[in-house]
Each structure stands twice: as structure tokens, then as C-alpha cells.
């Protein structure tokens, strides 16, 4: 519970934040002032001129051109002044400097792919160096998304079929929220992650080491990615369900089938069960699994088989389960320290680089899910 925690402003971490906040607070002042003027006047009149009070009501006023012009021109002038400041900030936000470092972003339901100029890729996380102007060139693979970094005060839609741009210069080292802020379907609220602002030196070494997160995947890791991507995880979880048997620890075990025959679950059995599941239906289950023949490449199948072989052992990358996610995040909340964000920029990026879209990279939930997987 965070009841002692009523933050009143977002962190200020980009070149736009200071100017933005100045305009914002000026508008807050303006709003407070006029609300007070109207509020005080209304309450004062309501009390003073309440029916039955002995107030002076002589010479009532019904028209007054001077007053009307006053409250036509004053709001107009204030409006034009605010228009000027707002527009001048907007023009800056829409005009990236020529020397900006380019980073490319692809949005898709429900994750962000980021690609740096030297080929380093990351998901749901954006690493940037402090003090360097960064220009994002963005496109969506499916529906509308919006790339939103509150601490930087920047946001832009990510549109299918056309590039959009966003630029900023990070000014404070730290970790900040990254949100998708254009409703994009079921898991819209979980499409996001973090922006990591590093010192220029650390960023340079991060980038030259291939961003750690883009290290070549082991076959098991690649298999885990496909397992989640093609949806195996939706039915085959840690335990048998009505829909599907668990695949944990089935390697080299004997499987009994609906027609009474049985086989040892070797690599060949796994491959044929993925591509043509109805050749051998495990006893007790119906014909519910989709046929993957033609849907996945042989390379995918190899990786999947490698992954299924280690499923349920401590070395396995954890699968993402839609059932686990919520409880995991709830667990994470209990242990989450509100200050963990915006600190610790140097922390190595140990996130699963190809985390399934159902999981926020870098959120405490990831660790919790992994721990849960290992405990089984």
C-alpha cells in the first residue's frame, strides 16, 4: 500500500521538461486564480443578496458594454499568450536537431521493438545516453499505438503505414516509465516498459557489448520464445488441464495414447506431435490442438523440441502463462520499492530479450514469474 505516497509531479528528465513545467504551472495558477474569482464572487453574492437580506439592490445592472468587453478581451489576450508559449514548445518538440542519434521503434500488439543504429535490438526497453539528442523513427505493424514517456513530456502516435518521429535529449540518469498510450486491444495496459538513461560512457560500452540483451539465444531460449509466441503456453502449462496435458518433464517418458498404444516421448515423437498432433492423441484428451504443419519452420521445431526437453527443470527459461501473470504481479507489488525506478541505471540488463508480449520487460513481475517457474 502506498498511502503515505502522494507524489505530485512526474520526474523531470528531458530537455523539454523544464519549459513544459513552467507553462504547466502557469496554467495551474491561472486556473486556480479564475476559479477563485468566480467561486468567491458566486458565494459572496449568494450570501449578500440572498432573499431577505437588507442589501442595497438599487440601480440593478443588466447591460454593461465595458464589462462585456473586459471579459471578452482579457480571456482572449490570456489565451493568445498561452497559445504562443504552447506553440513555441510544440514547434521545438516537432523539430529534431540534425545531429540527433537515430533509433528505430516498431510497435505491435502488445510490445515495443527497439533497434539501435549498430543493430542492437531490445524489447519494451529503450536505452539512451544522457545529454545526447535522440530521434525515434517509429511505425506500427498493426494498430495505432502511442509512444509515451511521461518523465520526458513527449508522446507521439505510432501509426501503421507511415513513419512518425519523436525526439528528446535525456537530462537525468535513471529509469523511467514507457507507456503505450493509444488503446490497442486486450493487453494495451501491459504494452510498455522502461526507458533507461545511462551515462554516455556506460551507454557506449552497453552498445558495443551488443546491448547484452541481444546476445545470441540458446536453443532453449529461442524455443521458449516460440512456445509463447505460437501459443503453446495457453494450454500446456505446469499442470495437466482439461484442455491439454502438461509437457513438463515428459522427455523420455512413456506416453499412452487414446487408441491404447504407447510410445517413448523422444525428439521424433515431439516433432510429429507439434506438426500433426492427431497422429497420437494422449489418452484422455480430444482433438483440440491446432495442426502446426506449415505454420512453423523446421528451425522453430528444433528449438521447441530443445525447450520442451528441459521444461520443468531448473535450467529452463520460464514460459509465460496467462494464469501466472496476475498473481505474479501482485506478489511483485508487495516487494516493490517505489524508489526502484529512476535509480540504478547501471544495473545490467538481464531481461529476457524476447519476452513475450504478455510480460513487461524489466518489471518486477518478470523475476517473480521466473522464480515461480523454478519452484515447480
Amino acid at each position: 500500500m502506498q498511502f503515505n505516497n502522494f507524489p505530485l509531479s512526474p520526474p523531470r528528465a528531458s530537455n523539454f521538461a523544464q519549459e513544459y513545467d513552467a507553462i504547466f504551472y502557469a496554467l495551474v495558477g491561472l486556473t486556480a486564480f479564475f476559479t477563485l474569482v468566480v467561486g468567491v464572487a458566486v458565494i459572496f453574492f449568494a450570501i449578500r443578496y440572498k432573499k431577505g437580506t437588507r442589501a442595497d439592490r438599487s440601480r440593478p445592472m443588466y447591460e454593461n458594454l465595458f464589462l462585456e468587453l473586459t471579459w471578452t478581451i482579457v480571456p482572449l489576450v490570456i489565451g493568445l499568450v498561452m497559445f504562443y508559449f504552447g506553440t513555441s514548445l510544440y514547434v521545438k518538440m516537432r523539430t529534431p536537431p540534425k545531429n540527433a542519434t537515430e533509433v528505430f521503434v516498431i510497435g505491435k500488439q502488445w510490445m515495443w521493438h527497439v533497434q539501435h543504429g549498430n543493430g542492437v535490438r531490445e524489447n519494451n526497453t529503450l536505452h539512451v545516453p544522457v545529454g545526447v539528442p535522440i530521434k525515434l523513427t517509429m511505425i506500427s505493424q498493426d494498430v495505432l499505438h502511442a509512444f509515451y514517456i511521461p518523465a520526458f513530456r513527449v508522446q507521439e502516435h505510432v501509426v501503421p503505414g507511415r513513419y512518425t518521429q519523436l525526439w528528446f535529449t535525456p537530462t537525468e540518469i535513471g529509469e523511467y516509465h514507457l507507456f503505450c498510450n493509444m488503446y490497442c486491444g486486450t493487453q494495451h495496459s501491459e504494452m510498455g516498459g522502461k526507458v533507461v538513461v545511462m551515462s554516455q560512457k556506460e551507454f557506449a560500452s552497453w552498445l558495443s557489448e551488443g546491448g547484452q540483451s541481444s546476445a545470441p539465444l540458446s536453443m532453449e531460449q529461442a524455443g521458449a520464445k516460440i512456445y509463447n509466441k505460437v501459443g503453446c503456453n495457453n494450454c500446456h502449462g505446469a499442470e495437466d488441464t482439461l484442455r491439454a496435458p502438461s509437457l513438463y518433464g515428459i522427455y523420455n517418458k512413456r506416453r499412452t495414447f487414446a487408441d491404447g498404444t504407447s510410445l517413448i516421448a523422444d525428439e521424433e515423437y515431439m516433432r510429429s506431435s507439434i506438426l500433426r498432433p492427431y497422429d497420437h492423441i494422449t489418452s484422455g484428451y480430444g482433438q483440440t490442438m491446432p495442426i502446426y504443419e506449415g505454420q512453423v519452420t523446421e528451425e522453430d521445431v528444433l528449438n521447441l523440441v530443445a525447450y520442451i526437453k528441459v521444461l520443468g527443470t531448473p535450467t529452463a527459461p520460464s514460459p509465460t502463462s496467462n494464469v501466472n501473470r496476475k498473481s505474479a504481479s501482485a506478489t511483485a507489488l508487495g516487494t516493490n520499492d517505489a524508489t526502484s525506478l529512476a535509480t540504478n541505471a547501471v544495473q545490467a540488463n538481464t531481461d529476457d530479450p524476447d519476452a513475450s508480449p504478455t510480460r513487461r520487460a524489466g518489471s518486477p513481475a518478470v523475476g517473480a514469474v521466473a522464480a515461480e517457474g523454478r519452484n515447480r
Partner: protein
Amino acid sequence: MSSPAITKGELKNQPQNEEVNYLNVEHTISSWLLTGDHKRIAMLYLVSASFFFFLGSIAAGLIRFELTSPAGVVLESETYNKIFSAHGIIMIFQFLVPAIPAILGNFLLPLMIGARDLAFPRLNLASWYMFMVGGALILIGMIGGGVDTGWTFYTPYSSMYSNTQVTLVLVGIFISGFSSITTGINFVATIHKMRAPGMTWFRLPLFVWAMYSTSLLMILGTPVVAITLLLVVFERLFKLPIFSPELGGDPVLFQHLFWFYSHPAVYIMILPAFGIISELIANFSRKRIFGYHFVAFSSIAIAGLGFLVWGHHMFISSQSMYESIVFSLISFLVAVPSAIKIFNWTTTMYKGNIRLQSPMIYAIGFLGIFTVGGLTGLFLGGTGTDVHLTATYFVVAHFHYVMVGGTLLGFLGGLHYWWPKMTGRLYNDGIAKVNAVIVFIGFNLTFFPQFILGWMGMPRRYHYYYFAPEFQAYHIMSTLGSSVLGFGLILPAFYLTMSLINGKKSGPNPWGAHGLEWETASPPPTSNFLETPIVLDEVYDFDPVSEHEQDMKDLDKWESTTDHQSFPTEDHH
């Protein structure tokens, strides 16, 4: 023009027996469902729109409940998305847009201008049927699978990706939209052609001016959104390439077409409330509205400029920078007529003879809330400031300040004000006053924390925020406030219904108000006026000075004999 359906019995009874009114003239169900009487149609709208409001409120309650915990409470994301979509769609298309025009406007417009009915009574009834058929389709869609696009139906999600009941709901909104168009046509024709002798344009009550502006917006804007939604349906069903880039369309085009209607729709919702507030402030201050012409023309100015600002919803949509700047400039101009209204209402109270009865409490609450709602619009109308705030809870708070704090408070104030006229009964004004305060407090407690949430960067339409637990405290505050607000919205259903059972008879003019509607019986007879009224003076023809002198004379008598919680008799003119 045309005459309402008058039965033989009514013609015979009416002159001898003034107790016969539009409510008791006939009692059969078909006499309600086939009526041409604008007052009965208004009551049909009152019952049906209240039903939709109830459904929309349940959805709102579920949303607030779900957001008390960062990882959700009971719902799956899929369900949550359907529920916030249902909340928006029902509240906007089936309550906020029709509420004031179709309920209070329908009832009052002919009464206020001294007409026997609207210009096209059967078209008026047809409007209600279109509203109900549209509403039924929307509900069928929501029960039979729901719709998860949000009320904005942004493409290509709505046209190509969502596998929910989008088509059915869009067709429902399309049909319901035509009820707006026909109501608008009816109002414009009535105001132009059916004013009583002597009812010149500048003697019209400001509520009628507001209805006129609203009608123009409905007639000009609704067809655009109707066609746009139909195009989405065509793209869904026939893969007609309009909005989806996969087919060769442009997703941003949808936003232009949608907001071309939906921004004016904001004014369709708020202008009628402006009209009500003008009536309430003038009548409860016993004073002619200050700057009548400015207030009247500011409605027209808002309606006109309202068509030229749609692009301020799209500053970060990839539209051209120069386009955004022009839209921003025009948006700041709309602030001016809104400010004119606020200041004129406030000044009207100066040297008035103010009755603090329940409708006036709502009006005062409206002034405070709408001022905040309007001024926070400056944050969003400015291009640079909008970039960070758009689509966050700041926007949610802003438009609820305008839509709930403005339209709903205006509607409640108007309903309390004209309830005795509509039903002939007085409700308990003491409870009503307390309720107005409850609504005000509950409203601010619900929506003010959302401004801070948005400023902090909390995106709207988020089911989970476990990755940002710093938002939770404000969400809990907001949810607590919403239960107070919910209580304040349920209570009127009870005391207003009670007034029908045991309320005192109101008589024609319980408030001592001015306006033609108060010169006929409460409830009015089917033909509204037994003889055509002739208008000889200005609408808010109060004299606070002499009334005050009379008050002073009556003061002792008033304090010793009258129960302050009930309506004072206004017999000292």
C-alpha cells in the same frame, strides 16, 4: 402548423375541468407509445434515458472498483476493456447527447415559445423509436459479446482487428444518431415558425437559444459521424479500403471524420446545460440575465467555432505541425465565449434577490465545476502542453468536469426546476438541497485526483498499473469519491418518485419564475395553453428592487409563518 392528436373526450373535458392534463388525459399503454404529444414523448425519453444512464453508471462503478488495485480486482483485461467501452458508448450516445434536448427540450420548447406542440409531432415520436431501436442494438451487441474499441472506434483496430460486436453496435449508434438529427430539425422548424405572437427572437428564453444552437450542431454534425461509422462497418464487412493501411486506406482519416462530429458533440452535450443554467440563475436571482445578447450570441459563437477545432484531438496523431497550430489557435478562441457566459452568470447574481433552493444550488455548483473544466481545456488546447497530457487521466478528468460537472449537474438542476411543471408535484426541497451538495462533493472527490494522475502520466484505458504503483493512492481516492457521487445520483430517483405519491400540488408557478411555461397549469393540458398566449414583455422581466421592498415588509410574517424548507409562496407581485 400541425396540431397534436386531440381526442374527442379531451375537447369536451378541457374547458370545464382544468384537472385534465397531458398525464391523465388517457391511461392506456398505446396512448403513451403512439402519442404525438411532445410532453409525453419527453417522459418516454426521461424513463429510457434514465435506464441507459443507470447501465452506464454500473459500468463506471465497475471501472472504479477495478482500479483500486494496481493488478485489477476481479476482471480480466478483455472484460475491463469491454466495460469501459460500454460506459463511454452508453453514456455519450444514449444519455449525454439526448438527455437535455430530448427530455427537457422536448418538454419545454413548445411551452416556452407558446406553441401547442413541436412542428412535427409524429417525427418526434419516430425520433424516440429510432433512439430505442439504436439503443436496443447497442445493448444486444454488448450482451452478445461486447465491444472493446472504446467509444472512439479508432481505426484500424475497430475496422480490422477487434473481433467483438463492433458492427452491431455501430449500426445501433447510426440509427440512434438519426434520432438526434430529426430532433434537431424539429426544434429548428418549431423555433422559426411556431413562436407565439409577440415572442420575438430577443424575447426568447436563453434555454431556447441554447436548443437552437444545439439543433444546428445536431443537424450539421451527426450525418458526418453516421457516415463515418458506416464506412467502418463497410471496411469490417466488405474490406472496403478506407481506413486500414493494409488495404490501402488511411487510419488517421478516421480521426478527422470522427472528431469533425465528436468535437461539436461536446457542445451538443454542454450547450443545453448552458441554457438551463441561464434560466436557473435568472429565475432564482429574480433578475434579468446580465448581458442577454452576449449570452445568446456566445452560444451561437461556440456552435460555429466548435466545427473548426476538431484537430485539437490530434496534435500527436501525425497530422501536420502547421495544422495543429491553426487548430490550437481556434481552440483558444472558443474559450472566449465560454468565459463570457461564466462572467455574465456570475454578474447576474449581483444585486439579485437570490433564492437558494435546490435548482440554484446545482447552478452554483455548475459555475464552480465548469470554470475548472473550461480552464483545464487550455492545457489541452495548447499544442505543447497537450503532448504530455493527451490521452492521460488529465483528459479523463477534464471531460468529466465538462460532461458530468457541466451537463449532468445542469440536467439535474433543470430536472429539479421543471419537475413541478412536468408532474404537478413538489418534492422535498430540503433533501434535494442536501443532495446537490453531496453530488458536488462526490464529483470533485472522484475527478479532481484524476487531474493529478494524468499530470503524473497515468494513461487512460489502462486496466493494470502494477508497474507504476505510485498511482494507487489517487485511484483509491477517486473510487471513494465515486461512491459518494453514486449515492447522490441514486437519491433523486427516490425523493422525486416519492413526490409523485405524496408530494404537495405545485400549482402553475411554484418558484415565482418568469416564462410562458409557468403561465399554464402544472402539469400542462395536452394543448399546452387553453388560449394562445400573447407576449408583451421581455423574458426575465423581474424587478428585484420593488420585490426586495416587498420582502422587507413581509420579513417578519415570512419568518414566523413559513417553513423554510418548503417552497415559499410567491404571491406578492
